[in-house]
């Protein structure tokens, strides 16, 4: 059992960091292990924002191997070296925790080659890259992660988030949601459920050159959609194909630079409550997530089995 939440403001920006934190905190009972946010703001679009980690959070509850923190600096230096070799220019860098960084970079070449080069450094993983996506995930509940990364001040148009109860893989950042839709800029996915044909799909996708960073079944959705889009499908077409291509039970959200989508499996085995108005769409695993930002009486509903919806900002 995990909790997922998402919202999109149509035609305006809002304090999505704070709103998503409230929604995910209301779902804490569904997933206390880790929390992740994918927040989208409409930046000037000049530079890429890259968030990456050079190690794991080895705090309480983590299943990661404890490392000497000195290796983090060595890995960061190797990342900088690789960026230089790729021709990328670091415009701004922030050290967020001992194991994670946020870079603004100038880069105009292929993102797949870029990602392979950066992630060739041991334990380094790009959490997200894009011109509007800020993907943050770490161990702890929504409030803890939000405070650690100062998310309550983040404004933007839309976002998705995840409160994780680890069932299929470890309690660590690499298995936490959201997942970046490698190698597409600004694509992220959160999922509630279990996928039963993970290995069949993973082997097939790896043979096509796609990469997996974790053994979490949910990462498959991001990679599955990315591969469809790489072959020319729209986001909505890829999501519709996932209803038959992915086996198991799932409700998932996917976000891009200017859209937010949801898909529900044909068994409708995982919950989702949806509120939709002209200027706001808010959805979550339980109604209390929506109530945390819309306490007044509103009309909500459960999307049906096999339903796919996509909204634009």
């Amino acid at each position, binding site marked *: 059992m995990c909790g997922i939440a998402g919202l999109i403001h149509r035609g305006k920006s809002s304090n999505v960091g704070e709103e998503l934190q409230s929604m995910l905190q209301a779902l804490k009972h569904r997933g206390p292990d880790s929390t992740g946010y994918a927040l989208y703001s409409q930046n000037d679009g000049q530079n890429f924002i890259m968030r990456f980690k050079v190690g794991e959070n080895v705090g309480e509850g983590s299943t990661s191997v404890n490392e000497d923190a000195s290796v983090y600096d060595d890995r960061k230096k190797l990342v900088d070296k690789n960026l230089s070799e790729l021709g990328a220019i670091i415009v701004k860098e922030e050290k967020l925790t001992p194991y994670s960084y946020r870079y603004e970079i100038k880069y105009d070449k292929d993102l797949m080659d870029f990602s392979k080069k950066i992630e060739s450094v041991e334990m380094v993983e790009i959490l997200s890259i894009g011109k509007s996506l800020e993907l943050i995930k770490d161990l702890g509940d929504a409030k803890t992660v939000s405070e650690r990364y100062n998310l309550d001040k983040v404004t933007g148009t839309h976002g998705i988030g995840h409160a994780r109860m680890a069932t299929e893989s470890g309690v660590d950042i690499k298995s936490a949601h959201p997942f970046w839709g490698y190698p597409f800029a600004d694509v992220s996915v959160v999922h509630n459920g279990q996928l039963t044909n993970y290995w069949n799909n993973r082997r097939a996708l790896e043979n096509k050159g796609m990469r997996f960073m974790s053994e979490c079944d949910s990462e498959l959705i991001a990679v599955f959609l990315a591969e469809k889009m790489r072959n020319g499908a729209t986001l909505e077409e890829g999501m519709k194909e996932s209803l038959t291509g992915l086996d198991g039970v799932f409700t998932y959200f996917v976000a891009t630079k200017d859209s937010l989508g949801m898909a529900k499996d044909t068994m*409708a085995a995982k919950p989702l409550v949806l509120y939709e108005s002209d200027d706001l769409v808010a959805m979550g695993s339980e109604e209390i997530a929506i109530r945390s930002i819309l306490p007044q*009486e509103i009309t909500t*509903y459960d999307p049906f089995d096999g339903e796919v919806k996509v909204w634009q900002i």
Partner: protein
Amino acid sequence: MANLKVTQKKTKAQSMGMHTEVLTGKTQQKFFNPDEAENFFYWGTHDVDFNKRTELDVKDMDCKEANAKIDSLMNEGYGTIVIKNPQGKHSLGVGILNKLNLIFEGSLGYFGVGSIDGPIVRVNGRVGWSCAENMMAGKVVIEKNAGSCFGAAIRGGDLVCKGSVGARTGIDQKGGTIIVGGDAGAFTGFMMQRGRIVILGDVGINLGDSMYDGTIYVGGKIGSFGSDAVEAPMTKNDIDWLNRKLKVAEIGDNFDVSKMTKVVAGKKLWNYDALEPTEKKGAI
């Protein structure tokens, strides 16, 4: 005790597609004895006065506190309780075993008004998953939409949703009536065993999958039939009952029930025989 095994004439219920299997065995012969009434005590019930009305704001309460407060108000004799600001909280109004007018001014989360036996409940909002699960008697009316597993395993009473409901409505239903004014999702009536489900709108795939007994009426389109769910002819009894029931449910004004599709169990999936479980055990 009449021997149902040799009863030739079909009852009204049987003609509507219900209770068609032959019931035998000692388990069918236990009835409440009025002479023993004074020894009969229903724990957790209260004598309430419907004219005694109060309001309860649960905005800052968790579900345990709110339910304890409802119980204490019933203990004080309040028979009409209005709950303010439920705000999607889970498990509100559960386990009420006596008559009561319970009104929620807002929406409920999961497992709202579960395991109730008698109250009349109105929810002026939406309900989440598994509303009225295991309901035994009473009436529950939802003014907006409902989540999945609406009326799971209910034994009796009337459960009404004026909007649309999610998947697996009436899963494992053992009695009572579920009425939905809008559409219903996949697996409606999954493994139902008794009772009736009425959907005025469309239903999703696998309608009545693996149903043992009971009847489902659908006014709109059917995504697909589930295993062993078959269409049956509508009778005058069905039409009369539907008209009467929709009126009580306050929905479906002028709805032409004669055009609804009636779905019952084909009874080819399971091994139906005349033995009750206790007799079967003895035979083995």
